[in-house]
């Protein structure tokens, strides 16, 4: 139990210290040291609890419950103040509504409830804790160097790094709290903290665009928060004893009681994990410094959304509401993958790829058979590792070449060879066999085919999956094309950044190699615990996958065969050999070659496809809402 409390309290303590520390050198030591501690403690939690299934901890509700209420109300006042200051009427309306509902809940419904077992841990929580503790803290370490360069490049932005690192660590603390909390009221508290942390981080640069996007993120997440509070109130009214506020009790109490809160909370999850129609906040969030994007996309925030939906998967399974939520996810996967084809901005491609993958996770959780829950958790793991690596690489590249446009990354393999190889590994992790995401896609097809209405999702997977292949491959092609006499510009990258990047690259490969172990130790027991049956991987296929991985890792060594042998020549330029990359024209003119990828904006343009996605998403959600009202009445 102490490990859990430590993981929640320690980042909070460090956060406060970071707020007070004025000097760079002390901050460096603090952040690096506490990142190491968090990583080690989360591994220790794995060691201590992996074979103990669900363990409950009886933490007294008070005074913590009251402390949380007070903090929540203070934050509401703070947001109200900001909302008035920036004249965001929608945000104001939402926060007033949410605070009002919360007050009602606190003063009229909560007294008389005596919840026990406020904290718990099981294999899924362990997985989430590892993601937060290892990947999240690595990103914080990376942010140290990144923010120095960031302020060097952007002198116009106020240097508020104290606040920045304070928020990063509060964020980690809240995420730990969220995955260990068993009391839904506590989950809501941590949930709201992550919303506000991301609001502050997105608005960090204080430009008009950043402020607007921060408020967009805030409003959409508050909308989800209102639904979450609604679920609490529903539970408090239907069961005044307060027992069903406990996640474990609620999940085992059957669909008749749990379906309404499950759908409301899944709606909150959909807003938080930025599925369509709410995807615009995550796309807008890329105005923030890159480590923030890495954090939001890989280990925190959006992962909180899918975490809670996967938790409720057994309740959603087999219901029409669950199917609708799955469809929202499926449509998001398909359309976000299409949009990613048309984007030239590297961070936008990454953002849409995240949205697509979250959609896929929700699609799995919404259908909610035991196989699909297994797939969903596997997707969470693989996505977190590969996406954090990619974001940090793009951030590094952006600072060195001064652009985040994919077209400007041509020939990166010559200019930043090590970073380019790391990006290559990260992208391979996102779409190539035998890396993680493809393993999940494969398992998802095999699982959907055995579930009701699975055919729709298989079609979505087949088409969306090939769009995924397209946008990653053309980006990969851009990076590895060989341009003339490149100048190496990656030498100024600092040591701690390299360390983070090396560790993440290794993790992408290691996760693909040891995923059978992750599955056997953590995911399969978790699924077994809930469903009484679990996915078993055929040994023959596993062997083949690992052999393929070995082959893939071995192939680059064949380059050694050609170290001296081949003779080099220029590329084919319409039959007239020229010096380098130019066409030889008439009367001695030579024209430099400029190559650009296909983006097919006419077919996969962002505006058009987002419109379709938003309309479909709202339609599905309204339908689910109507059904829900029917159930409640």
């Amino acid at each position, binding site marked *: 139990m102490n490990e859990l409390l430590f993981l929640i309290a320690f980042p909070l303590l460090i956060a406060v210290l970071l707020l007070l520390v004025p000097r760079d050198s002390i901050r460096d030591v603090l952040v690096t040291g506490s990142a190491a501690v968090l990583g080690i403690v989360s591994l220790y939690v794995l060691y201590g609890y992996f074979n103990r299934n669900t363990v409950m901890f009886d933490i007294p509700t008070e005074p913590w419950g009251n402390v949380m209420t007070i903090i929540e109300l203070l934050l509401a006042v703070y947001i109200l103040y900001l909302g008035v200051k920036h004249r965001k009427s929608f945000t104001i309306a939402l926060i007033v509504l949410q605070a009002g509902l919360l007050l009602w809940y606190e003063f009229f419904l909560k007294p008389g409830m005596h919840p026990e077992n406020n904290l718990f841990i099981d294999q899924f929580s362990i997985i989430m804790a590892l993601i937060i503790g290892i990947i999240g803290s690595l990103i914080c370490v990376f942010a140290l160097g990144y923010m120095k360069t960031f302020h060097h490049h952007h002198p116009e932005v106020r240097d508020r790094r104290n606040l920045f690192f304070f928020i990063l660590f509060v964020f980690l603390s809240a995420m730990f709290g969220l995955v260990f909390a068993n009391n839904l009221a506590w989950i809501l508290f941590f949930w709201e903290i992550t919303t506000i942390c991301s609001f502050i981080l997105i608005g960090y640069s204080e430009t008009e665009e950043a402020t607007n996007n921060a408020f967009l993120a805030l409003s959409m997440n508050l909308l989800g928060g209102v639904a979450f509070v609604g679920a609490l109130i529903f539970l408090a009214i239907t069961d005044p004893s307060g027992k069903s506020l406990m996640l474990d009790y609620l999940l085992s109490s059957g669909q008749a009681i749990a379906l309404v809160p499950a759908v409301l909370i899944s709606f909150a999850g959909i807003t938080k994990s930025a599925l369509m129609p709410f995807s615009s906040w995550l796309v807008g969030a890329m105005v923030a410094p890159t480590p923030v994007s890495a954090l939001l996309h890989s280990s925190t925030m959006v992962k909180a959304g899918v975490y809670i939906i996967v938790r409720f998967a057994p309740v959603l399974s087999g219901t029409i509401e669950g199917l609708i939520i799955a469809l929202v996810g499926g449509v998001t996967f398909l359309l976000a993958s299409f949009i990613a084809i048309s984007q030239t901005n590297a961070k936008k491609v990454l953002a849409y790829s995240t949205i697509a993958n979250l959609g896929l996770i929700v699609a799995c959780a919404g259908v909610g058979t035991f196989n699909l829950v297994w797939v969903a958790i596997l997707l969470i793991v693989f996505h977190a590792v590969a996406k954090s690596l990619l974001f940090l690489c793009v951030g590094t590249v952006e600072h060195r070449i001064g652009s985040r446009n994919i077209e400007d990354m041509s020939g990166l393999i010559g200019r930043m060879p090590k970073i380019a190889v790391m990006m290559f590994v990260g992208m391979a992790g996102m779409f190539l066999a035998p890396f993680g995401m493809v393993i999940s896609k494969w398992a998802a097809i095999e699982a959907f085919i055995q579930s009701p209405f699975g055919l729709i999702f298989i079609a979505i997977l087949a088409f969306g999956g090939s769009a995924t*292949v397209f946008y990653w491959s053309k980006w990969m092609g851009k990076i590895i094309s060989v341009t003339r006499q490149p100048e190496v510009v990656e030498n100024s990258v600092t040591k701690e950044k390299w360390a983070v990047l090396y560790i993440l690259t290794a993790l992408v490969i290691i996760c693909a190699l040891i995923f059978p172990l992750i599955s056997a130790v953590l995911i399969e027991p978790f699924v077994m615990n809930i469903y009484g049956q679990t996915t078993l991987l055929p040994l023959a296929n596993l062997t083949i996958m690992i052999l393929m991985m070995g082959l893939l890792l071995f192939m680059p060594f064949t380059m050694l065969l050609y170290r001296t042998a081949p003779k080099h020549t220029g590329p084919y330029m319409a039959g007239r050999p020229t010096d380098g990359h130019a066409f030889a024209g008439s009367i001695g003119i030579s024209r430099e070659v400029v*190559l650009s990828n296909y983006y097919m904006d006419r077919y996969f343009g962002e505006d058009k496809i987002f419109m379709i996605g938003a309309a479909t998403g709202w339609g599905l959600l309204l339908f689910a809402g109507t059904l829900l009202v029917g159930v409640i009445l």
Partner: protein
Amino acid sequence: MIPDLTVRVGAALLYIILAPLVGGLVVGIDRKVTARMQGRVGPPVLQPFYDVLKLFEKENLVVATAQNYYVLSYLVFMAVAGALFFSGGDMLLVIFAFTLSHIFLVLGAYNSFSPYSHIGAERELIQIIAYEPMIILTAVGMYMVTKTFYVGEIATSTIPIIMYLPGIFIGYLIVLTIKLRKSPFDLSTSHHAHQEIVKGVTTDFTGPNLAIIEISHWYEYVFLLGVVYLFFAFNPFIAIAAIIVAYFVEILIDNTTSRVKWQLTLRTAWIIAGTLCLVNLGVLYYLQGVLTL
């Protein structure tokens, strides 16, 4: 059930040794038949082998050293995909290995930074996204009929798969045209000397590298025709006949149509072939209760 390990490894080895010979022969016959359709005598049937042997004798001239790596990976993973298929492995795994190998070819083309290779690479990618969903849906269709993704079990099933999956078979034939690099869908590079942007995806490969690409194609052909076999696996004689007819139809289409733009290729593959596949699967899904599969 899945045959035991020695049989599987044996089949995989047999494929790795024999597939280039069979594939090369198929290409030789293809060229002969094509020539006859065009009123020419055509090259000897063994011409593809002579070509490849000659290419191996040439100097290894490259734009970038890494090209060798990409091309070799293309060959290796194509062989892996085919070997998995013929050893009775999981069809989805085969498809993913198959895609992986093509990505290496595309990367090899991007690698040289030449305008012609570049366009070839982009178009090859468009072809990949055009055919990949259909091949996955083909595997799914076979699963719905035989209840297994294992090629070994599908091939030994006594169910006449083609009777249940006519739509998927036609869809597969459409994408087969893309995969065999035949008109009207030979966008990235074409196998015969049709209209051509120089040589598309293979522009900047010469000598031994070009030979390796050619051998990879032979591996690919045998695999693709193997999938046709699966539709008729209940009777090997009918299956062989079906392969011959299907290939002949592909040659005929190749010689009677001209190349279309990529937009039309993508539309044909996604909308026409996709609809055929999905309608077929939908009907099958609906009838699952009625038919006792």
